[in-house]
């Protein structure tokens, strides 16, 4: 099913606001991971405003779709999307990383309703998502389970343990999205420990694999449409650019956790106006 142009335009606008909000948070906290916030903003906007079924006033609703943010360090983008979706007041975003804030640098299930599991250490999200999907499979529940990982994160072995379990159990209610921005903290993934051929790896583990432009909202909506589900888990490799939306941050490892100075922040906000 092709998404309506109106929905695509709305999500594109929300992604722009998520990028602005995340950069504002990183700038004020003088900490954060702007490169990944910007690469994942479109994926998060599509999930929260075009795909996931949830009620922010009832975040423990057993019937809700689950979203697990495995790349927990990109919390600026996640919290911005969650606030926009109504999980907490947008004013609270200003407390990011401040003492006693619910908005820890890495999302905490103990602090913030709507966070399905605490993340931060990499390779934790997919096993948890697999567990939720198994619960749904046992119960014949209608909810879907989504998990977003980074691409460098694919180097964590726990992902492949979980990949085997999901493939073996044919968890068709499970969708993994990989934010394939090709950069990890220190360098390019392929210069660190190569991931390619990534799609073949996931296929070999028993998953359906699709590759999309991770900044194309229409493509993301289309690939996440329930009509596309098969009798196996789905891995979406979303090709993205680290720092997408801010010219001087694009495709550079140094913006993994770089913090913009005042002039850079002003320039970035101008580009995202």
């Amino acid at each position, binding site marked *: 099913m092709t998404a309506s142009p109106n929905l695509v335009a709305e999500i594109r606008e929300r992604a722009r606001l998520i990028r602005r909000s995340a950069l504002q948070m990183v700038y004020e906290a003088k900490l954060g991971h702007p490169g990944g916030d910007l690469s994942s903003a479109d994926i998060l906007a599509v999930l929260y405003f075009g795909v996931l079924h949830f009620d922010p006033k009832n975040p423990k609703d*057993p019937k809700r779709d*689950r979203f697990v943010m495995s790349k927990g360090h990109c919390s600026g983008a996640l919290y911005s999307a969650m606030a926009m979706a109504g999980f907490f007041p947008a004013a609270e975003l200003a407390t990011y990383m401040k003492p006693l804030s619910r908005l820890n640098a890495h999302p*905490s*299930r*103990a602090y913030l309703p709507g966070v*399905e*599991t*605490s*993340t*931060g*250490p990499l*390779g*934790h999200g*997919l*096993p*948890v*998502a*697999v*567990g*939720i*999907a*198994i*619960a*749904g499979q*046992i*119960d014949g*529940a209608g909810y879907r389970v989504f998990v977003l990982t980074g691409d460098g994160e694919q180097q964590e*072995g*726990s992902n492949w*343990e*979980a990949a*085997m*379990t999901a493939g073996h159990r044919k968890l068709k209610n499970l969708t993994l999205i990989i934010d394939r921005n090709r950069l990890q903290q220190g360098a390019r993934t392929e210069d660190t420990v190569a991931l390619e051929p990534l799609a073949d790896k996931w296929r070999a583990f028993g998953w359906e694999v699709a590759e999309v432009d991770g900044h194309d909202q229409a493509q993301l909506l289309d690939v996440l449409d329930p009509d596309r589900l098969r009798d196996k888990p789905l891995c979406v490799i979303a090709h993205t650019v680290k720092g997408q939306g801010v010219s001087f941050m694009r495709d550079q490892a140094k913006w993994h956790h770089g913090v913009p100075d005042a002039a850079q922040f002003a320039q970035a906000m101008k580009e995202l106006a």
Partner: protein
Amino acid sequence: MTVAAQSKLHDCRDAFAVTLEALAEKDERIVVVVNDSIGSSKVGGFAKRWPERLINVGIAEQNMIGVAAGLANGGKLPFVCGAACFLTGRALEQVKADLAYSRANVKLCGMAAGIAYGELGPTHHSIEDYGWLRVMGSISALVPSDPWETAEAIKAVAAAEGPYFVRISRMGVPDLPHSSRGFQIGKAEILREGKDVALIANGTMVHLALDAAAILAGEGIQARVISMASVMPLDEAAVLDAAETGGVVTVEEHSVRGGLGGAVAELLAAKAPCRMRMLGFPGFLPTGSVSWLMQHYGLTAEGIAAAARELRDLR
């Protein structure tokens, strides 16, 4: 006559399995998660009765803990059963982030803990498990000493919300003389009264502490014997009362660092300093059978009694 000589010896996994199945009959949320450890956890009966509620993730402990956290998120009540050494050590960060920090409603059942694997050596010994978990502060650790305490511990953690670790031994232990007060998380049980010295033990060591108390009684020393199944949270009142005897011996099938002895010492150092002896293992152990290792490290009734005499002689 020793306590063990007066009773049939039991593998506590049997009481665990019977209790879990009884609970599962009434609570559909209960699922079992294993790492190819159906036989070693004695959940074959469960698997036969409820195959769809038995989730075997294969030999993949990190995944196993994450999957359990996810099952709890999906409304299930997971009991994760595997050899304690791998269940804790191999997946420690998952236990920390996915269970303890995330407050997931998951119950870890560590099988064949301590040195139950004997000759298999330090890779398979689990003498660090509840020490690692205890320091997190937000996952409770129970170390039952016989079939009754094992069954009670399993019932208690099933009824309590949040992450728990229960250490289940396969080493033969006798039935112990329990009072009728019932089992409570965070509460110790005094199995023998005494005012001259206190023996605080858990798990497979409790019956040996009772034997030690009998030896000491023959010498005119009245030893109090406390079963401290709840290492985290510790029964602080019971420990502070024990300190009034003037000497506390802790006995555990665990490293002497950071376990029951460590927990008792932390409390006593701050609130009621008294002489202590901590019996347990010093670190990685040499090759040897279970009984040889126990003898070698003084985890015997005579070894416990000797530690108690030392404390008395210091006064």
